[in-house]
């Protein structure tokens, strides 16, 4: 249970209880600002009741950042000219993170549903996301939400050692023939990913 509302700049000062988790990266301001400027409706916060009513309390924000990737964005901006490539038009989940205190409450599913709705409205063909192959919990959750492993991206996450990513996808209603979710049989390199 939560309040889903658009992310605001002031949330940047209070999202620490989510962002201090080692799996959640804190990016430079420009990252958040660019996406807030491009797609404010894709950038949502779920807030728990105590954050809203008390005005101050512990562990209030659970954040989701749902963003369309840059390259795709470009396609959208010039869509009038580039209709031929339309079937690649999709929503991309850049980050989804739930505060440790608010896990196992179905929140991620709510947030994913929201993203899918927005993407439907924007007439996207599918939604995709990348996840570490070791993140079993997340992979299982996405599968339950109807996502399939479309392909493996080799050494996508830098680190020691680098880690592979699964590119997971779910087709939306516009992709009637479900062409976007036929899995690739071979893995790809990060530079081959658009």
């Amino acid at each position, binding site marked *: 249970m939560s309040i889903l509302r658009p992310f605001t700049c002031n949330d940047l000062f209070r999202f620490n209880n989510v962002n201090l988790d080692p799996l959640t990266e804190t990016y430079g301001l420009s990252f958040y600002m660019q996406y807030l400027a491009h797609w404010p*409706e894709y950038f949502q916060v779920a807030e728990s009741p105590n954050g809203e009513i008390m005005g101050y309390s512990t562990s209030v924000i659970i954040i989701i950042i749902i963003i369309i990737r840059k390259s795709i964005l470009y396609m959208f901006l010039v869509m009038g000219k580039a209709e031929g490539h339309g079937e690649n038009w999709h929503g991309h989940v850049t980050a989804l993170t739930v505060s440790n205190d608010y896990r196992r*409450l179905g929140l991620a599913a709510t947030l994913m549903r929201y993203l899918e709705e927005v993407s439907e409205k924007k007439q996207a063909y599918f939604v995709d996301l990348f996840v570490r192959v070791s993140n079993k919990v997340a992979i299982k959750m996405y599968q339950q939400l109807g996502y399939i492993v479309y392909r493996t991206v080799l050494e996508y996450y830098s680190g020691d050692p680098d880690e592979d990513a699964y590119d997971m996808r779910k087709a939306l209603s516009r992709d009637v023939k479900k062409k976007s979710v036929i899995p690739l049989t071979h893995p790809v390199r990060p530079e081959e990913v658009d």
Partner: protein
Amino acid sequence: MASKTHVDSTVNERRLRPIYDWLDNGNNKKALQEADKVLRKQPGNQCARVLKALALLRLGKEDECQLIMDKVRAEVPCEDSTLQAMSICYREIHQPDKISEVYEAAAKIDPTNEELLTHLFMSYVRLGDFKKQQQTALALYKLKLKNPYYFWAVMSIVMQALKADEKLAKGIILPLAERMVLKLVNEGKMEAEQELQLYLMILELQGKDEEILNVLSGPLASRLSAVPQRKASLLLQLQRYPEASAAFKELINQDIDNWAYYQDYLKASLKHQTPKECLDFLNETAASTQGTKARAPHLARFELLVQIQDSEEAQKLLDPVQLMRQYFAMFGEKSCVVGDLKLYLNLLTSPSKLNLLQQINEDVGVKSDEYPKTIEQMQRHIHMKQLQRICGLHHCPIADRKEREKLAERLLDLYDEGSTLSPFEDRLPTDFCPADPYALLASHLLHQLYFESNDASYLYRAMELLERCLLSSPANFHLKILLVRIYLEVGLIGGADHAFTLLDAKHIQLDSLGYLHTPLLAPLGHLSRASATLDHAAKFFVANYKDSADHLTFAYKYGSFVKIQEFVELRERLENSFHFAMTTVDKMLLELSWCDSPGMLFNTLSTMRIQPHEDSIRWDLLRDNRDLEVIVGWEPLSEKNEDLRMKEETRECMLRLLAARSLILRIIAACAEFDASAPTSQSDSTSPPLLARLSAQLKQLATEEIPATLRKFEDPEKSGVINYKASSVLVPMDALARLREAYESEQLITVVQLADSLTQCSYPDVKCLEALRSSASLQTLHLPEFDSPVSYKPFLLRATTCGETLAFLAAMCSACATQMQPRMSNKKNRKKLAGKENSSLPSLSSISDHLQSWTDVGTFLAEKAKNLETALSGLENLRLQTGIKSDADTKKVTATAIVSDRGEASIVQSCLVLTSREQLTLKLINSLRS
């Protein structure tokens, strides 16, 4: 012709490409060489010249850069790549107004160039010049009838309204914006959702709710998202309650777990329905969600009780104790249960709170000498323990100190047992250990016990415990934050710094979390680390200031009008951040305290460009960006709704500390100014000399405002003793600690005394020396005990104050003495000066007084510096006493060793760095004597 220019531009681009590449790679030297190569062939190439200027700027040659830029600007360049390069250069040199100037000039020559005008518009956005934005946007629209240009103009008008007073905004500016939008609406030319949102925003700013409702019900609504939600909220605002409650019911039925809908539903329906009717709906909804994780309908029943709290019906309708017990039974193993119930615990009287906890205790089923058997049971047990703390079961009057000790022991055992339920090997390294909250609770109790007993062994136990937890739960940031807090309390800043580093705070977190340890790095002796950390934070703020103008331009570019005001606010919030202001002042004072010669002192001062005449801090705009809620605490509920984290009170401390330290900075800078210490002029004695003015301000601060602020934290019965509330606050009380130190050590008054003496007779007189002799800020405290666990905080704070004060006094003296030297020793100079300001020149007899007094003060300061060195050397071979008994448990042994090692290293480092600063100061002092 056209094709020729095309060829020219591609040739040009090919030649310039390598310069861009080198600049992008950060190799500015190569970029400069490459630019020179191009310029040898085409000396007039504007773009190459600008790129050369940019390379020079990045190589630190600002003056040369400026020279080239001025020349190119005078030629009025119109070519796009040149202008863009100029924009980058002006942005980096912090002259955004020049960007507008060059585009203005170019647009005058080429007034139909859409691209130029767009850049001109964006340059005004960077400056926040809304009027000119509006004009440029309209010029663009005239040129090309594109909607975005039109709405840029409308948004620029709205921004003017937001900055104007309300009468003007509502009477003239907003109606104008509305008419402009209506024109396009009536012509059927509205295109994007953002345009509609801007329209709604304009209506909202004017309070035209009915009109908004009309838009939402009209044909335009199909372009908008979240229409039903907006409509429902609007109906509530318009007090059309039956419609509003029906609308929210509908929304709830579609999205059964959205808490916002329930709150608004209750607000609306209680206005026209009985509580019973509302309850029926909530019960129905709750029943339909059986077996799901939906909490909202259940929680809504508590909300209903709050809303009707005072009515008699409330009693009959629902029994909150039973309801809460049920709620705990349903959601007891989820961490959110604590926060949810905490919101409504004030519905209960104190006895019924205890009653509820009793019942929950029975349901959880762990007896007081037993341990949870499953993880699920443990989670319930933990949440119950947290609720107990919230209900005051860990505090007076329910629990006394003895009881607290017992509770802490029990929690420690619970942690030990509980952590075996979920061993490290079974978890992902990024998962928290589920038993950690026991340790957090125990640490809070130990922290409390320390303040009650002043026995630091409680703190060492807490540190050992938290370090041990961290070994098997390295992802748990709550442990790290609490470690920072407790290491600070015992003065082991190195340990705090290490724990803070583990948090990996960066970017905006440097502002919102920096307060956790940064302000105390230098005061506890880690000066080099402080310098690096302050530098890092300052860089974030400066870079952001540059970038945030770009963010605004994005918002216009993508038409996100709803975000523009927000972006402007964020920019202001960061620009005026308290932490930024404090960081800047602390950083400069730290650098000044490192000077070992008058030459270095003057150099340092000149690179800082301090303007002692003007106060550069915009006090009324300062923003407190600390995230105090990141620390979990389960503090007892307060009935008066007081803020247990004392945000406002600590903010006031920050304000006073900043005021005091920025005055010290200005006083040192004023000492180095030629005539700041001398009266402005004999005939015009109306305005006192600058130094006297600054000193008077600092004196007032030190004797009036600061004591008044500190009194708010004191025990009303025991003056000078910090009250219980303030001492048990979980948030690091850095500003309070520093302000008290500045006050109790008389550091500020000492600076005032020297400044006054320098104003009155241009040298430290006998009276001043007398005062310095008795100043507490120049003596160290007694060494802490060696054979028992103690807090090193008071000793280290004072040792740092002592070293810092010596450095400040030495800097002031040596700045003034250096000023006097040329006047006294150089005869030629003296004649010249004598002609100019004969009255301020000391007579020959006073010159020997001067020389003597500088020697005296030098000897005195040198002696104090030596004393400090001796005191610091007393800690060199310290073996840290933790008071923790040796144990068979290897983890405990490891954790204890970690605490000892970190602690000893921290103290050694503090002493080492403080000693080396003292030696630098000593050199500066010695130059006074010669």
